[in-house]
């Protein structure tokens, strides 16, 4: 009997411990979530130079694995992949490294999406709802490893940027001259 009691204690302890936002499915957007932007300064006039340090801002969407995964879906749907690929970059800068031209805080990325940036990043203001920009921002941060592993999507069901190892053509390592060095 005593043991049953212990089990019950363990069970209820687990219950108390987990009021865990990682698993929340935020389906209805709270109206307040969308009105917290544009208080974040990003940079001076020259992109990339003299970054103004910004206070860390919070983003409720980056605590929910579901929202980050929604961000991932939108990243595809809104054709972000067209320029940034799946984080590797192309026409646009890569997003999976640690270089941030306009800052890596959720607010910075949000502002980048909403306002656009010189040299090609369009502005999505009025094009996408703000909560979706927050979700995309959360996903972008996850690509750079800035989110805990528990909420970051692991992989998608899409094609990888890199082909599967079995289907990569066989390569011979080449030197500067293009001729493999033969061991003497």
């Amino acid at each position, binding site marked *: 009997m005593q043991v049953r009691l212990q089990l019950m204690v363990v069970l209820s302890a687990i219950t108390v411990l987990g009021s865990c936002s990682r698993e929340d*499915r935020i*389906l*209805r*957007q709270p109206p307040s979530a969308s009105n917290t932007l544009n208080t974040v300064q990003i940079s001076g006039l020259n992109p990339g130079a003299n970054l103004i340090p910004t206070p860390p801002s919070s983003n409720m969407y980056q605590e929910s694995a579901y929202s980050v995964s929604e961000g991932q*879906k939108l990243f595809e*749907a*809104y*054709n972000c992949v067209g320029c940034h690929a799946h984080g590797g970059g192309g026409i646009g800068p890569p997003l999976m490294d640690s270089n941030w031209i306009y800052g890596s805080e959720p607010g910075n990325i949000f502002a980048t999406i909403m306002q656009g940036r010189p040299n090609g990043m369009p502005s999505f203001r*009025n*094009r*996408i*709802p703000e*909560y*979706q920009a927050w979700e995309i921002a959360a996903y972008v941060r996850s690509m750079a490893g800035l989110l805990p592993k528990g909420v970051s999507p692991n992989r998608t*069901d899409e094609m990888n940027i890199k082909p599967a190892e079995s289907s990569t053509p066989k390569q011979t390592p080449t030197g500067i001259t293009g001729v493999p060095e033969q061991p003497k």
Partner: protein
Amino acid sequence: MTAALSLVASHVLAQAKVLDPGRHHVLHPAAPQAGHIEWLYWFIFWILFAVFVLMIAAFAGAGAKARVVASGPLPIVEKDEEADHRAGWAVGSAMAITVATLFVVLVLSVVTGKRVEGLTSKNPVTIQVTGHQWWWEVSYPNSQADQTVTTANEIHVPVGSPIVILTNSKDVIHSFWAPNVTGKRDLLPGYSSAFWFEIDQPGIYHGQCAEFCGLQHAHMGFSIIAESVDEFQAWQQQQLKNAAEPSTSEAIRGREVFLTHACLMCHTIRGTDAGSRFGPDLTHVASRNMIASETLPNTAGALAGWIVDPQRIKPGTQMSPNPLSPDDLQAVVAYLQALH
């Protein structure tokens, strides 16, 4: 206001009548396929019913001799060769009958399967159905790209000619099922398959996703609209056209709103700048009976409610809420309702 409400109500009622859900039934076939299956169903049913009655009779007969003796177990029955012999015959013949019955069921099932699946026509109407979370993309492929009709959730087919459905899925597994028409077929990502049916009575047949596909699995309906060949061809010609130019000032403003807000990020309206394929094609959205995968009637009120807060109606749907101003909303609805 009252007039508008009653208009909406009558439209909803009319909708209900057209869909006639009372007929939404496996055993109300509207197609030869479902007819064959219905026949097989009843055939097996009556066989099984007979088996059921016999077995229950046997158990009842055996049980009728029961004794309730509370004072402890009864003595053991002595070994009785005679009884064993009779029981052996009874069990043996019951098994023989079982095997024979099963064989009949097997043969009829295979024969019916062949009748349902075998396509003889060389010139069927081919329709590509692609499952999305949580709607159906429907296209009528044609070798000329500009002759390809793309629509969503409502599948128009001509009565009396064979229809081939090619299946595919964009994300997870869905399953295409219209009970009045034929059995279901899974839409598997990475696999494409084909099956066919033919509808012999004009009408609207409801269908829905039958494989669990996530949050809005419950609201993933479609309908098959069977009409005469002429009507079907007229419909197809209409669908091939680009979107109608809005004629009223409100509708023109609606197009502006559509093209300057989130709508164009996901939807296509051919003839405008909106060309994203993430959501359903809206080029002829007003020609459909229902919206949101057969969840709401295609009325101004339902459309407005859907645009403003789709997450209330289908929590988890990919469509985002659009807090438009009342004027903008009215304009967009007017525009969409003009897209015949």
